[in-house]
């Protein structure tokens, strides 16, 4: 466990603390290499690539766009609802979201 946390501290984008999950979605769904994936997400968010891992920028942006925040906010989009927003923002298909939408008749 300590090893995984050490890698996160040393090299990780920060997951939902920042934009790590968003960049990961692009590698998974479009096979983008790291720099291409970062550039794509930054363009969609309207920020500089350098700010993708800046908590001070990403926290507010995630909150405003409904992408889910790392701190738990009552009434804020979380889980599958946040992923719906992420899929929409990034123009990708997330399979769990597609299933949820089909169940909801969307």
């Amino acid at each position, binding site marked *: 466990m300590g090893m995984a946390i050490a890698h996160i501290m040393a090299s990780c984008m920060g997951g939902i603390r920042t934009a790590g999950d968003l960049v990961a979605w692009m590698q998974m769904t479009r096979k983008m290499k790291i720099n291409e994936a970062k550039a794509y997400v930054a363009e969609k968010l309207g920020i500089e690539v350098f700010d993708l891992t800046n908590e001070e920028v990403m926290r507010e942006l995630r909150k405003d766009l409904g992408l889910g925040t790392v701190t738990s906010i009552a009434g804020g989009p979380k889980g599958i609802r946040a992923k719906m927003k992420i899929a929409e923002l990034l123009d990708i298909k997330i399979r*769990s*979201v597609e299933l949820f939408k089909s169940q909801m008749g969307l």
Partner: protein
Amino acid sequence: MTNQILTRMGDGERLWMDVEDVMDDIRDGCADAAQRIGVPELSEEDQKKLFDILAEPSRIVSVNPGEEVIVSDDGTTMSFYSGQDGGGVGTPLSRQQAVQTYERACGADTTSLGHSDYSYKPVKSIINFEANDYYNISQVTTAPFFYGAQPNMGLYFQPDGPCPNAAELMPLGKIEEARQAQEQACDYLADDLVFVGSKLAEVGLEGLNFDTSGSAGDADFLAALQGVERLKEKFPDLPILMGGAGEFILGMHGELTYDDKRIAGMYTIDQVKAVEKAGANIYGMAVNTATTESVPWNLARAVTFLKATTDTAAIPVHANVGMGVCGVPMMEQPPIDAVTRVSKALVQIGKADGL
């Protein structure tokens, strides 16, 4: 500057090494990898960068701001609640609690779920339980959520499985029989990979991980490639991460091919092209750590393999950085001084797309 550097051996032992010895090990590690795959050694500049990372006096190091990459995982969430055999710390968390803790408290880029055995064969008989847990957790997570396990073809040989035991046939000189047994096991394994992957895909699977493919040799790797191909045909939108078991695929069969290329002996630069051809979205690169060599030697070797592999890859390459791979010492509790130096070097010099 002190003439000695605090570092580790591949088994985790801490030691002081002379600067000249560290540089020698870096050169030797680079040369070993370069010679094996027929690429140039790391440049003098890259070797100096690697030395600087290893010589950094801080207890832990990190990549420079802006150079962060995706850190995916292969069952890390299981380490919250499992025991020693899985590197687990035995805290009383449910699977859902572990996944959400990893996502929200640790800030991981991706999370995952896996069966305690972490092999596809035992998952087959409990697939509905796994699908149910996967589906429930996927509703409350935000970061990409993988299901992972190892192909682990060894489980298909007698007495654990249906096929004659190839490892017992070979010492008897029954080479052809051993090959037939592996081909049979390969078919069973590919079917199981497709079965498990399909069942999970039906409940909204976000990503599937074939972890440590090729651990039982070339037939094991072939089964994983065929599994990827068949799943991609059924579910073109299913992201699949296919990771290797080492820098070199063992030729336990020796004659199997994929895309007209012999699988036995494939190094990482060839593995990634096969994985690409099969249709996987991410390749996980593994380079085994030699316990009798130093971390500088192991890391230089891993970085050389990685840089050549990322240069040739059209898909993202994640360097596998668990216990005993890509320069991480081979022990249950890898020291974080070595882990963070491996992390930084693979990203900044090896140009990993992720870890």
